[in-house]
C-alpha cells in the first residue's frame, strides 16, 4: 500500500464510509447507493472507452449479460452462489467481448458507437422474444448465497451491500491502475493520434480490444450486482435507452477520475428521484436540461469542478499530479 496514490487511498477510505452509510442512511437511500454501485461499474466501463475516444452506446449488452448470467445460472443450473455467478458472468462477457472485439476494434467515432448499439439491440430483441426467459417481463432471481451461507431478510440485504461495495471499490482501484499503466497510457494516446501510436511500435487495435474486454468484464460484474440487488432481470438492461443512460452519467460526471462515474451514477439516481417528484410527467425534461447545462458550462463534467478547486489550492507544478 506504500505506492497508493490519492485516488487509491480515497477508494480505501470509501469502504468504511459506505458501511457507515448503510447504518446511518434511510433504507430507501441505501438502496439507491447499492444500485448506483452496480450501475456505476458500467458507467466506469463507458468512461475507460471514452478515454480512447470511443463512445459505447451498447454497454447495456454486458450489463445484461451479467444480469442474465445470474438469472440463468439459477434457472438452468441451480446455482445461487454469488461467487460462482460472478465467475460465469465474467467468463461469458470475456468470450462475447473477445469475439465482438475482433470486429469493433477496427471502428472509431460514430461507427463504433452505432455498432455497439446494434449488437446490444440484437440481444435485446432476442431476449424480448424468448418466452423461456420471460420475454419482455424477464424473470426473478434467487436470494444470493455465499459459499454455502444463504442469509435472508436484513442480513441478506446487508451481505449483498457489503460485497457490492467491496467489488465496486476494488474494480475501480484496478481500473485506476490500468489507466495509469502502459496500456492505459496507450489508450489515451490512441484518442489523440492513432497513426503515431502505430509508428511508435504498438498495435492500436490490440489496445482497443483489451480495453473493450476489460469494459465488458466490469459491466457484467455491475450487471450481476445490480440484478441481485433488485432480484429481477428484464431485456431492458440491453436496451439502447439503458446504454444511453450510462453515457449520460459519464458526460455528467466527467472522465477525469475513476471515482467520477461512481459518484455521477448516484447523483443521477437522486436527481431522477427528485425530478419525478417535482414533475412526474415531464421529469425527463429536467434531466435533459441538466445534461445541456453540463455540456455548456462543464464540458469535462462535474469532476472538473474538483480539479479546478485543487488547482487553485495547489502550486502549479503539482496541479497536474493532483488531478490524476
Amino acid at each position, binding site marked *: 500500500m506504500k*505506492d497508493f496514490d490519492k485516488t487509491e487511498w480515497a477508494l480505501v477510505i470509501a469502504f468504511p464510509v459506505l458501511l457507515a452509510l448503510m447504518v446511518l442512511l434511510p433504507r430507501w437511500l441505501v438502496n439507491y447507493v447499492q444500485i448506483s454501485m452496480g450501475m456505476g461499474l458500467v458507467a466506469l466501463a463507458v468512461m475507460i472507452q471514452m478515454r480512447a475516444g470511443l463512445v459505447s452506446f451498447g454497454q447495456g449488452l454486458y450489463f445484461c449479460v451479467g444480469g442474465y448470467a445470474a438469472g440463468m445460472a439459477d434457472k438452468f443450473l441451480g446455482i445461487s452462489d454469488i461467487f460462482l455467478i460472478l465467475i460465469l458472468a465474467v467468463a461469458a462477457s470475456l468470450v462475447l467481448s473477445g469475439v465482438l472485439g475482433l470486429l469493433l476494434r477496427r471502428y472509431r467515432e460514430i461507427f463504433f458507437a452505432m455498432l455497439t448499439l446494434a449488437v446490444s439491440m440484437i440481444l435485446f430483441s432476442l431476449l424480448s422474444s424468448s418466452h423461456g426467459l420471460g420475454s419482455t417481463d424477464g424473470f426473478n432471481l434467487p436470494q444470493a448465497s455465499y459459499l454455502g451461507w444463504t442469509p435472508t431478510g436484513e442480513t441478506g440485504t446487508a451481505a449483498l451491500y457489503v460485497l457490492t461495495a467491496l467489488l465496486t471499490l476494488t474494480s475501480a482501484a*484496478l481500473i485506476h*491502475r*490500468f489507466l*495509469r*499503466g*502502459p*496500456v*492505459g*497510457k*496507450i489508450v*489515451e*494516446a490512441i484518442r*489523440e*493520434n492513432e*497513426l*503515431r*501510436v*502505430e*509508428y*511508435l*511500435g*504498438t*498495435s492500436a487495435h490490440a489496445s482497443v480490444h483489451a480495453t473493450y474486454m476489460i469494459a465488458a468484464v466490469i459491466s457484467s460484474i455491475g450487471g450481476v450486482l445490480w440484478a441481485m440487488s433488485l432480484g429481477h432481470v428484464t431485456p431492458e438492461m440491453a436496451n439502447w435507452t439503458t446504454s444511453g443512460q450510462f453515457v449520460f452519467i459519464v458526460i455528467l460526471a466527467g472522465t477525469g477520475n475513476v471515482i467520477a462515474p461512481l459518484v455521477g451514477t448516484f447523483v443521477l439516481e437522486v436527481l431522477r428521484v427528485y425530478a419525478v417528484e417535482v414533475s412526474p410527467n415531464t421529469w425527463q425534461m429536467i434531466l435533459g436540461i441538466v445534461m445541456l447545462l453540463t455540456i455548456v458550462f462543464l464540458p469535462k463534467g462535474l469532476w472538473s469542478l474538483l480539479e479546478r478547486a485543487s488547482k487553485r489550492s495547489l502550486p502549479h507544478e503539482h496541479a497536474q499530479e493532483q488531478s490524476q
Partner: protein
Amino acid sequence: MSVILETVGLEKSFDAVVAAHNINIRIHAGEVVGVIGSNGAGKTTFVNMVTGYLTPTAGQILFHREDIAGMPTREITKMGICRSFQIPQLFPELTVLDNVLIALTIARRGKRGWLRPAIDAGLTQDAMDLLARFHIEEHAHKLTTTLAQGVRKLVDIAMATVAQPRLLFLDEPTSGVSAEEKMSFMATLIDALKATDTSVLFIEHDMELIEAFAPRCIAFYEGTILADAPTSQVLENDKVREFVIGAEFHRSADDDAQNDMQKGA
C-alpha cells in the same frame, strides 16, 4: 560499412499511376543520406513503403537481410526503422513531456505489468534527458499546439528516436522552419542523432542543407532514381539540375561565387 537496408526492384502503383519504379537503394550503417526530388517524385512513397505504411506492388525491402515488405508499421518500428513526419504527428492535447513519456512508455512497455504505473521518476528523467539532447527541455510543460513549428518538428523527431532506431527517416525536417533557423536547426538535429549512431535518411528541398549535412544524396524523379552518388556529384549532375533542382539553386550559387570574386578583387 555494412548494408542495413537494401531495396530491390521496388515498385508501387496506384491503379494506372506509377508512384515508384525499380527503386534499388542501399543504406549503410551510420550513413547520413539526403533525398531530393520535386513534389510527387516518389520520396515519401519510398519512405511509406519502407516503414510499412504502404505495401509495395513488387520488389523486396531487406533490413538486415530480412524482407520486411508488407509488414505492419509497428513491427518494422520494433525492428529498428523509425520515421518523423512532414506534418508533425504529435498528441495535440498533451504537453511535450507527456508526448515523449507516451513514446517511452510504448518503447519500454514489455518491461512493465499492466497494473504498474507506466510513468515514474526514472522515465520522466529519461524524457527530460531526451528533450535536453534536442535543446527543447524548456518547452516540456507546454501543450504541443502552442509551440512553433520548428519545436514541434523537434518533438516529432525526438519521439521517433525513443525506440533507438538503427535507421531513421526524416520527412522534410525543416519544412515550416524559418530560412534563418534552418541551418542551426539541422545542426542541432544531426548532433543529437550522431550520439545514437543511427543511420539517417532525410528528405529535403533545401540544397544548401543537403550539401552541408548529407555526404551522399539520392535524387528522385517521377518515381525513379535519377542519381545516387556523393552529394557534390549529384548536385552537378545535368539531369538532376534540369529535373530536380531547377535554375534557382545554381543561379544563387553562381551569384555567391561572383560576389566572392568581387569581394576578393
